[in-house]
Every structure is written in structure tokens, then in C-alpha cells.
């Protein structure tokens, strides 16, 4: 049991290595090994989640037997269990989806894609599990490098967008690392638990304040918090579907996780809220980001760019939860991590399926998909209902808790922002829905009822129908998840999230 925290990333790292070696001989073997690794790490994560919830205790593991703070510690507590389960779950789902999609979008590159995917998931899981601020940086870079590799196999614009992302990512990592350095020189330790014991005495220390600021700025860049989001649309636009399907749902969220971890468990209470106005700053930037992302999403004609701008807005909901800095608000933000991961993963995977069947990526060309790919489009409707926040989908509840948090904090402007943004996302998502459910080749002129009788004859423009099972099953799983997480959101809250936000009191 106590090895679980280390086991999760180790399994994935091992899988990445083996997958690469085997993949050089046989692509199938490489895929199989990577899938096994992802599946095993997901099972272990679930096991750990159950263990943590039932015992109420965090599972700690000292790497190499070196006792912390000398050695590196891996900690599976409620927050980490929440995150790793999500990360490995999305990982498995995207792995199931990957072969057909990669074969179509990036033929011949799959051999290297599978190890990169495993490495990316390993890095993200490691970030959430480590109990060491420097080790977090190491995993952050592992994830980043894997992401660059995955993105670069994308379309023509891909390598260039990736280069830009690489520069930004390196800057973000650099800021964070610099902050870690300042912290180490002031406190003399890198272990999170140790730091949280030492830092209360150093609250007025300039170096510690600088450290906190640098770390948060670095992570905010990685999180694509407005106005540090500018790298994202190009990256998503040119990415292969599997890369976008992994990076959009979980990668930015893990950076948000890291900020929440620093806020709740590393720096002393009140440090992020009073000593330095970090949470308030994040909150205001998020409020701006929500509006900015939603408005620009309306202006997009390309499906993936629309999703990218929507992500700028959606990640800002998590930021708003941090900004509210009260239990219910932060619960809303944390819940939105899972909600948005499911919804955005779903929408990207659907985009990939549509591309596979029709080659279409622009919204105006999506006419008639409701007829040619009906089941995929039902899943799509669930996804957009979630994005708009219609109950009982998950999206409704995170927004509702954020609203409750805003009421509690008396943050009326943020309250208004959440309300307005729901309307804006309704505008851009229902626009796509309307397009999808139009009849293909429908005459734009008035169609009166008299002609309606003939309309039922199907003239299939795209004869291929719904995607193959290996792509549709992941889509169906995510769509079901959007509803189930909504209906049973309180189970997640009472089992995990209430414990996570306990440091905030209340």
C-alpha cells in the first residue's frame, strides 16, 4: 500500500521506456505496453484513492529509503488522489482513442507518440504526487518535453507553434525554478511538509515573498492564465487530436493544481491572501480571462481554435475558485478541474472523430453531422450542455459553487462575470449545435411545411457514419462522465474536496 505514490509515475515511466524499445520492432507491441502502463497506473490510482478516502490518511513514500527532508517524498493525499485519478483516467481514455486517430492524422509517427503520451502522463502524475517543490519542477519539465514532442508531430503549423510554446514553457519553468531557489536559500529545505512548518516564521522575509511570486508567475504561464494564455490557441489549433485531448484537459489543470498546493499546503495560511495579494490577483486575471476567452471563442470559425479560446475562459474558472479563497468557492474551482477535463476532452475527441470521418474542422462546414454521425453528436450535445452549465451536467455545479463562493466573499463583479460568461458560452456552443443539426445541403431559403414531407429522405453527404468503436467508446465514456460527475458531484465533494479545502477553515 505504501508504495502506491511512487508506483503511479514509475509504472508510466517504465511503460514509456518499454514502449519505445518495443515500438521500434513492432508498433502494436509498443502501443500495447504503453496502454498497459496507463491502465495499470489508473488502477493503482483508484486503489490509492480508495485507501486514502477510507483511512482518511495520506500515504507517504520516501524515495530510495531516504527519510525526508533529506530525501524526496511522494505523498498521496486527498488532493493528489483526486488529481492522479483524473490524470490517469483521461490518459487511459485517450490511449484507447489514439491508434485510429494517429494513424489518420499523423501516419507513421505513432511509434514515438505512444511513449511521449506515457511520459506526459507520468510527468503530470508525478507533479501531483511529489512532496518536494524541486522535484515538482523536474516532473513539470518531463511533462513539458513530452508535450513538445507530441505537439510537434502535428500539422504544418505545428512545429512553429510548438517552438513558441517551448520558449514560453521554458520561461515558465525558469520562473518557477528561480522561485524554488529563493525558497531554498531562505528556508533551507525543499520538502513541502517541512516548508509549511518553517515558513510561518519567515512570512515577512522578502526572499520568501519573491519566491512565492516567481513560482506563481511561472505556474500561471503554464496554466495559460490570462494574459499569459497567448501560446495556447496556436498550439491547440495545430496539435494532433490525441495531443490536444491530453494537454487541454489535464496539463493546464496540473499547473493550477500546483498553485493550489502552494496556497493551501506549503505557504502559511493568509500568506497568499493577505501578506501577498496573490489569490486576489489570480481572481481578477481569471475574471478578465473568462470574458476574454468567451468573447474570442465566439469570433472563431475553426472548431479547435474555438475550443482553445474556450479553454482560456474555462481554466480561469479554476483561477476564480483560487481567487475567492473561501471553501465553497475553491470547491467550485477544484470541481471544475474534473468537469472541464471531461468536457474539453470529450469535445476535442469528437473533433478528431469528425475530422476522421469528414475531414472537416471549420464550424460552417459542420452542417448535417447530426444526420451522418448521430451518436457522436448526441455526445457532443452533452458536452456543450456541460460547457454552458445546464443541470444536471457537471458544468452546472462547479459554476453554482463558484457563485455561492462569490456571494460569500461579497465579490459581486465576479458574480456578474460568471453569469455573463454562461451566456457567452451558450452563444458560441449553441451556434455549433445549430449547424450540426441542420440538414445537409439544406436550401438556405425558406422551407415551408408543404415541402416538409420529402425532407425525411436521407441524402447522406458523409456515408461513413459514427466513428469506429475504438474512437467512439472513449467519447461515450467521457459523455457519461459529464453527467455522472454532475449527478454525483456531492460524493466527490464530501469524500475528497471538503478535506482538501480544510486549511481554509469553515
Amino acid at each position, binding site marked *: 500500500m505504501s508504495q502506491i505514490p511512487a508506483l503511479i509515475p514509475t509504472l508510466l515511466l517504465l511503460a514509456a521506456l518499454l514502449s519505445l524499445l518495443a515500438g521500434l520492432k513492432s508498433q502494436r507491441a509498443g502501443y500495447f505496453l504503453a496502454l498497459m502502463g496507463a491502465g495499470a497506473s489508473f488502477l493503482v490510482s483508484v486503489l490509492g484513492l480508495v485507501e486514502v478516502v477510507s483511512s482518511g490518511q495520506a500515504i507517504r513514500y520516501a524515495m530510495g529509503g531516504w527519510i525526508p527532508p533529506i530525501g524526496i517524498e511522494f505523498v498521496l493525499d486527498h488532493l493528489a488522489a483526486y488529481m492522479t485519478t483524473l490524470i490517469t483516467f483521461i490518459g487511459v481514455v485517450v490511449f484507447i482513442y489514439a491508434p485510429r486517430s494517429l494513424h489518420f492524422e499523423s501516419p507513421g509517427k505513432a511509434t514515438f507518440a505512444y511513449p511521449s503520451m506515457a511520459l506526459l502522463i507520468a510527468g503530470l502524475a508525478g507533479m501531483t504526487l511529489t512532496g518536494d517543490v524541486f522535484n515538482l519542477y523536474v516532473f513539470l519539465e518531463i511533462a513539458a518535453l513530452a508535450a513538445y514532442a507530441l505537439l510537434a508531430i502535428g500539422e504544418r503549423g505545428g512545429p512553429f507553434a510548438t517552438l513558441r510554446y517551448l520558449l514560453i514553457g521554458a520561461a515558465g519553468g525558469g520562473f518557477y525554478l528561480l522561485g524554488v531557489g529563493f525558497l531554498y536559500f531562505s528556508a533551507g529545505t525543499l520538502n513541502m511538509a517541512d516548508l509549511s512548518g518553517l515558513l510561518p516564521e519567515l512570512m515577512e522575509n522578502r526572499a520568501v515573498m519573491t519566491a512565492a511570486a516567481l513560482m506563481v508567475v511561472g505556474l500561471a504561464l503554464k496554466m495559460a492564465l490570462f494574459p499569459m494564455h497567448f501560446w495556447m490557441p496556436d498550439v491547440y489549433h495545430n496539435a494532433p487530436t490525441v495531443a490536444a485531448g491530453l494537454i487541454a484537459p489535464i496539463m493546464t489543470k496540473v499547473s493550477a493544481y500546483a498553485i493550489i498546493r502552494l496556497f493551501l499546503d506549503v505557504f502559511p495560511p493568509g500568506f497568499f491572501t493577505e501578506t501577498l495579494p496573490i489569490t486576489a490577483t489570480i481572481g481578477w486575471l481569471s475574471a478578465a480571462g473568462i470574458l476574454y476567452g468567451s468573447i474570442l471563442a465566439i469570433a472563431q470559425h475553426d472548431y479547435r481554435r474555438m475550443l482553445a479560446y474556450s479553454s482560456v475562459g474555462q481554466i480561469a474558472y479554476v483561477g476564480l475558485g483560487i481567487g475567492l479563497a473561501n471553501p*465553497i468557492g475553491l470547491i467550485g474551482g477544484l470541481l471544475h478541474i474534473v468537469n472541464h477535463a471531461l468536457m474539453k476532452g470529450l469535445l476535442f475527441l469528437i473533433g478528431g472523430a469528425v475530422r476522421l470521418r469528414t475531414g472537416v474542422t471549420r464550424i460552417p462546414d459542420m452542417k448535417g453531422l447530426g444526420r451522418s454521425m448521430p451518436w457522436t453528436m448526441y455526445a457532443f450535445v452533452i458536452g456543450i*450542455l456541460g460547457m*454552458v*452549465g*445546464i*443541470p*444536471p451536467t457537471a458544468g*452546472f*455545479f462547479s*459554476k*453554482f*459553487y463558484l*457563485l*455561492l463562493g*462569490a*456571494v*460569500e466573499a461579497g465579490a459581486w463583479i465576479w*458574480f456578474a462575470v460568471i*453569469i455573463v460568461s*454562461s*451566456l457567452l458560452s*451558450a*452563444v458560441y456552443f*449553441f451556434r455549433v449545435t*445549430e449547424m450540426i*443539426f*441542420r*440538414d445537409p445541403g*439544406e436550401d*438556405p*431559403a*425558406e*422551407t*415551408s*411545411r408543404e415541402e*416538409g*414531407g420529402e*425532407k*425525411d429522405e436521407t441524402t447522406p453527404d458523409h456515408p461513413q457514419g459514427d466513428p469506429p468503436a475504438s474512437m467512439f467508446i472513449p467519447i461515450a465514456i467521457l459523455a457519461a462522465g459529464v453527467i455522472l460527475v454532475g*449527478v*454525483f*458531484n*456531492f460524493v466527490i*465533494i*464530501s469524500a475528497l474536496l471538503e478535506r482538501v479545502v480544510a486549511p481554509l477553515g469553515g
Partner: protein
Amino acid sequence: MDQLLNWAPLLAILVSALAAVAIPLTGERNRNLRETWTILASILKFGLVASMIPGVLAGQRYGVELLEIAPGIELALRVDPAGLLFAMSASFLWILTSFYAIGYMRGGKERKQSRFFSMLAVCLSATIGICFSANLLTFVLFYEILSVATYPLVIHAGSEKAYRIGRQYLVYAITAGIALVGGIALIYGVTGTLDFVPGGFLDAGAGAPMLWTIFILFAIGFGVKAGVMPLQSWLPNAMIAPTPVSALLHAVAVVKAGVFGFVRLVGYVFGPELFGDMGAAIVLATFAGATIVLASLIAMTKDDLKARLAYSTVGHLSYIVLGIALLVPQAMLGAAFHMVTHAAMKITLFFCAGAIYIHTGKKKVSQLDGIGRQMPITMAAFGVGAVGLAGVPLVGGFVSKWYLAAGSVDAELLIFLGVLLVSGLLNAAYLVPIVTRAFFRSSEEHPRFGEASIFMVGPIVVTMLLSLLLGIHPDGIFGFFSVAEAIVESVTGVSFSGGG
């Protein structure tokens, strides 16, 4: 038995949800089987609702708490007189609409019939959910589902115009929904609870700015669906939907969900006392009163029959809102009863309009000269509905209007008595000429007798009889009047048992 009946509200919601799944799976090829699902679900649903009437009148409150859906808030159902009244009228009229819709959709060779029947069933599930919600969060959950599920019905025609109207519909509906969610968040922040309580649970301690913000958000949220001016413009446009939708959803279920929201808001959230003290009642009553008069005036100018009926609906919905906002028992009783009588009368008129359209292709009032000779049953039913809406005795509309008028005297707001009287005249002026035209003007076009299909005429006759029965013996069928009395008693504490 009572134990079992606790599950009745949940089953009443689920039965049409199941039908909504079964319908598309059965599909166009087995359309008789497909229609069986609709009919079966509607009858079962009404049976389940009706089975609770005696218990609820005796003071029972059936219901279940399903699961905690947010900290301290259950997804919970509870049947009280107010919800029961609305559920009774909606589910009973769904049976008739189901038959009617079969006649209409087949007669008109409409497209995408599976989607149509499936979405209609979802709407009914959501409506019954709204009726039986025990708290605001459950309420808004179903309210939003209703908004979204109506959209495919509005764009049914699939024309560019339908999509444009669909967009407008969604903007209104989503705005309303999010305003409600905002209002609910405020209430939860202030009180820490969202459970409906007869007589209300908010108190003046929250402070006037907060109370007014809550009121405005809710007024937007419910006002859109209830068509209170200036939020009404989506409703006449939504008449582009097939007539069964206009009849059931846009005269009964959807729009009354908004009105019912006001019932919950005033009677079970604010409470009549606080609502009056803070001054919101008179504001709401003024908007409603203005809507009644303006809508009637606009209705007179419309030549399109369904558009005229739509504006008539806008006006009559505000009768109910006005009755609630007057806060006196008599007016509330009138309002509650008008929910039922207006439903019966207006659905009759829409059914007639649809029958005329499917049978003769005519949509405009000016084309109806002499049609009474061809479709006498339809036009007679239309006549009953028309005089009923104008408030002529022996039809249901008279009873509800009587109490509304008595209420405005009680409330010492005689201006609203004037509004009601003027509007009665206006109603007569825009509806009765249609009937006289049909019977007394001659035209070459309608020489011989020939009604629409029995699927359509049958429901028309039943709703006409229902309108008459409600006027002659208000408590005669299903105890509608007693349930309405029970609502007012639970909200105000005033008893009508001495005869009202």
C-alpha cells in the same frame, strides 16, 4: 399505500423520460408502436398524478429525497397542492395532446416525428419535475431541462426562419435560467436553505438591496417563460413550432412553468407578507396589469390566428401573475384556478387552429369566413373557448376571473378591477368575431361538412367539455377547485371551507 405513493412523483417524472428513450428506438418504421409509447406514458403519468389527489387534499405531502446534490441541498421531490394543481392540468392535457399530435403530425406529413414525440415527452418529464420540486435547486434543474428540450421543437420546421427564432428562444431561455441560478445562489448565501416553505422563508433581515436583487433576478427568470412584458417577444415567435407544441407547451406547460415559478417565489420563498412589505408586489402587479391590456390590444391587430392566440396567452398568463401579486386570498384563488381554466380554454383554441390549418391549410383570421359550415364542431368548440376567455358565465374562465376581480376589490386596488374588465371586453373583441365570421358570413370555399380527423376532433371536444365543466361545476372534475383552495390555505392560512 402512502408509502408507495411517496414514489409516485418520481415515477410520474420517469415514465415520460422512459417514453422519450423508447420513441426514437422504435422509430419511424413502427410508428404505431411508437405512438403507443406516448399514449401509454401520458395515461400512466396522469394516473400517477391523480392517485395523489385525495391524500394531498387530506394534508399528506408525498415525496422522496433522492440524493444530496450539493452541500446541504437534496435532490428532493414533494407534492403539495400548488404543484399538484399544475401537474394535474399539464398531465391531463398531455393525454389529449398526444392523440391530437398523432392526427396533426400524420395529417401534415411532418418531418422528424420521432424527435418531435421524444422531445415532447422530455418536456413533460421536466414540467412534472418542476411541479414536484421540493426546493429551488431541484426546481431550476428541471426548469433548465425544459428550456433546452423545447428548443428542438421550436426549430422543428427546419427553415431559416425557424432557426432564427430558435436562436432568439435560446437567448431568452438561457438568460432566464442563469438569472435564476444567480438568484438561487444569493438566497442560499443569505439563508443557507433552498427548501420551499408555505408562507416563505426569506426574512426582511437580508436588507432591501439584497431582496430587490433577488426579486429582479427571479422576475427575469420566471418573467421570460411567463411572457410578462417586456420579456414576451419570444412567445409569439415560438408559434412557428407545430401546433401541438404551441397548444401544450406554449399555452400550458412551458409558459405556466414560469407562472408557477411566481407562485413558488411569492408563496413559498418570499412569502406574501414580505413580498408586499418590500414593495415588490405592486411592481409585479403593475407589470402584469400593463401586460394584460397591451397584449390584448396587440392581439386585435394580428391576422394570423396562432399569433392572435399567442398574444392572448401573453395576456392571460399575466392574469395569473397579477392574481399572485395582489396577495389577497381571493385573488390568489382566482390565479390558481385560472392556471387550470386558461389551460383548458386556450388549448381548445390552439387545437382548433391546428385542425383548421391541417384540414384546410388556412392560417389567417381573414380566411375563415364561413368555415363554420364546414367544421361546425371545431368552430363551436372555438366559440366556447373564446367566450370563456372573455369571462362569460358557464365557462371556466368566468369563475377564475370572478375571484380575480373580487381579489382586486379586496386588495383595494380598483385599477386592476378596471384592467380585468377592459381586458374582458378586449378578449371578446378579438376572439368572438372569429366565431361569428365562421358561422354567419358565407363563402364559396366551405360548402360541405368535413371535419379534421377524429384524432384531432376528439381532443377538441374533450377540452371544450372540460372548459364548460370547470365553469358549471368547478370542483366536479378531479377536484381542481379544492386543490386551488388548498394552495391558498397553505400559503395564507385563510380557510375557504366555509364556502368561498
